[in-house]
């Protein structure tokens, strides 16, 4: 854990420096901007609320990316999966009878969204198993395709006329706000935290989690240990997609109360940064989500001073820094179901074994 902390600290430092350069380049004072950012985020209750509002979907997409990573896969399709999930959630919310009790309505809508995300990611998983097609390209392609399909269905049938959003959902499906002087933070945060705990429990305590982690480290040894790789690949992609699909709870049920084109911004890709920064650990992911949520809302909050894209750039800088620093320590994640490489760890004990093999 200590090594992880060092990496995160280093990454934040590099990001802060990069941000300073970008801010300075357009003629503003980095310190002033950073100060303003902090003040407008953690300095007011409204700011805190907005940060929480943005951290919630980041927790979910971070978990989504993490689950795939743990098994050696890359789910870059959270963007499309959350779009599909949000869309379905909104449609459910608008279609459900108003007489249904609140908790059930919410549950149905969220589950429907999770199912949509799961189906998309599952498709990429099946293509990988059946054809060996790399899930990176397929999930990215699906992002584009989903975006177009939603637009089509929306324009043809479900969008409110002359707009790019769906009908408002019924009241029983809405999630209440958390206060924070009128910010958009809502109870879906609790859902996200609950899912984080559930994922942690799954990987650390259950038999299946044990098997999945083994696949991520050494798929051939897992296979010899009786684990069926195809099932794990598809299962992990499904779980990953479901987590992304739950994002609809935050924006649709808890905030706008309808689906709008472009919902979520690039929360899907930011999930990669969250997972990396959080060291592929649910607890770390929650913290990383708070951090990146701060950056995201903060970017908006200071957008009259500096372009908010600066913070998008910082997010990429963070990913690169963490990726380089982790590799430098020899330890990001090992093994993918398609590849068969196992790296011996770098600590001294490992050298002994390597030595035995060398001079044997």
């Amino acid at each position: 854990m200590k090594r992880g902390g060092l990496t995160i600290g280093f990454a934040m430092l590099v990001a802060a420096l990069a941000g300073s350069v970008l801010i300075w380049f357009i003629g503003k004072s980095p310190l002033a901007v950073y100060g303003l950012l902090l003040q407008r985020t953690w300095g007011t209750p409204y700011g805190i609320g907005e940060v929480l509002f943005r951290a919630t979907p980041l927790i979910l997409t971070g978990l989504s990316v993490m689950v795939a990573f743990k098994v050696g896969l890359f789910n870059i399709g959270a963007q499309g999966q959350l779009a599909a999930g949000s869309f379905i959630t909104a449609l459910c919310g608008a279609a459900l009878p108003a007489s249904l009790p609140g908790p059930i309505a919410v549950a149905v809508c969220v589950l429907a969204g999770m199912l949509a995300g799961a189906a998309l990611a599952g498709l990429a998983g099946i293509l990988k198993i059946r054809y060996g097609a790399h899930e990176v390209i397929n999930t990215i392609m699906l992002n584009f395709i989903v975006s177009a399909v939603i637009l089509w269905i929306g324009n043809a049938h479900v969008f409110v006329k002359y707009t790019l959003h769906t009908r408002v959902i019924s009241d029983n499906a809405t999630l209440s706000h958390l206060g924070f002087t009128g910010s958009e933070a809502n109870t879906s945060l609790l859902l996200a935290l609950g899912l984080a705990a559930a994922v942690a429990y799954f990987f650390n305590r259950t038999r299946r989690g044990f098997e999945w982690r083994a696949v991520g480290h050494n798929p051939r040894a897992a296979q010899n240990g009786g684990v069926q790789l195809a099932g794990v690949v598809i299962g992990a992609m499904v779980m990953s997609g479901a987590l992304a699909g739950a994002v609809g709870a935050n924006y649709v049920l808890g905030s706008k109360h309808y689906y709008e084109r472009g919902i979520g911004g690039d929360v899907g890709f930011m999930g990669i940064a969250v997972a990396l920064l959080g060291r592929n650990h649910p607890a770390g992911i929650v913290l990383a989500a708070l951090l990146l949520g701060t950056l995201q809302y903060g970017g908006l909050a200071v957008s009259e001073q500096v372009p908010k894209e600066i913070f998008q750039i910082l997010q990429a800088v963070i990913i690169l820094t963490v990726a380089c620093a982790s590799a430098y320590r020899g330890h990001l994640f090992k093994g993918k179901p398609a590849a068969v490489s196992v790296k011996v760890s770098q600590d001294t004990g490992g050298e002994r074994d390597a030595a035995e093999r060398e001079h044997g």
Partner: protein
Amino acid sequence: MGDQPALELRNISKTYGAVAANREVSLRVEHRSIHAVVGENGAGKSTLMKIAYGHARADAGEVWIKGERIARHSVSQAIARGVGMVHQHFMLVGTLTVAENVVLGQEPRRAGLLDLARAASEIRTLSQKFGLDVDPDARVEDLSVGQQQRVEILKVLWRGCDVVILDEPTAVLTPAEARDLFTVLRGLVQDGMTVVLITHKLDEVLAIATRVTVMRRGERVAEYEAEGLTAEQIVHAMVGRPVQQYVDKQPTSLGKPMLEVRELRVTGARGLPALRGIDLVVRAGEILGIAGVEGNGQTELVEAIVGLRDVDRGTVSIRGKPITGQPVAHRYSVGLAHVPEDRHDRALVLDYSIQDNSILGQQRDFVGSFDVLDRDRVRQHADRLIREFDIRPPDPRHLVSGMSGGNQQKLVVARELSRRALSVLICAQPTRGVDIGAIEAIHRRMIEARDRGLAVLLLSAELGELRSLSDRLAVLYKGQIVATLGQEQLLAEDALDNIGAMMTGAWNPGAGPKDAPQ
């Protein structure tokens, strides 16, 4: 040249972490000799030669090549002075041709483009001169293992090396290919070159070496002229004590057939048939050994029995119940256990602890309600294995990647033997890369298992191991069982010769083993 040796190492010492690979080793290789460096796995021979070749840096000591001391040694220094190494694990680029592989790094050019024609003709010349018979335009991955080794030798010769070091060259060759190699080596020496041979195979040493250095536990313990040398002398020096030829093994009463394989046909890599109709029976209380050069179907046989590879035709049964087509987990549940030939690849998750690895393959047996693993039971299980098999370090939380090869293997064997309702144990190369103490422990456990009534299938490249452990021995050649030997035949004087002949398909039951193959 004169009096100077071709290669000399003076008081070389090298330590890797806590292990002393070489302890003040000195070696003198004379020109035009075939000098064998002999020792068991772990004796330090490979390290010594890597230092000679510049691939590794010694902690202390000097390297002299042709009478000149080399201060800052490196691979390019070695090559520049005419020392070349043929590695045990080939360094070849499969998709490139022989010519491309040989010239890589020093490619001849004409008008800015590669001049492969010139490379090819130079290679052909060398090839003819030394009887290497390799087509420069062939793709390396299409060549047989023996031919690939020749490409490695060509790489060395093309660069003008006249001291050639070969690291365990016959590990992957059939006895016939090994004989061809020796002819080539003798040809090299006749042409004025020097050959250094690293090996643990005594018959090779006796067949071809002119001088022998024996290493043990990182030290040079003996040096002999090959003239009049006997295998016993070498073995005694290698192991340091009179060799116990056979493990203590009492005859047992055979039980029912536990593992049955009928007419098994399996396709291997690149669509070629690997097994062409195998029939095997292993009964309770016996060890059936399988001998064969790597690449004749052993890996595919194990994979088919364990469930890691599909079967084209035929059946596999345990206790009379067919398991063909069943998933791996099912086979474990009906009494199968498997010690894989490559523990890092198949048996262990190096990033997991001893504790976690101790249940890999049995995790369902340690589950409570809601699919949650019972950590206490897992811990107890790991503790028990550590105790019973003397696994070091004795801490269940220790990562397996930090363990020695012998301890890792003991863990695997311990785990497999701890399965409930065990009937059949498959061991593939169980003592590869394992120190002597662990080898003895593992052999003892295998005999114990057999005495307890298990059916054991043992696949090994070490004929000595097979001979001392097996009750019966089957020889696998090109995907078929070509012979089966009983106890008496196994213990006969000429058993090793006969088995060697069978392994190359030269066995004709009607005549002697040296006759032409069918």
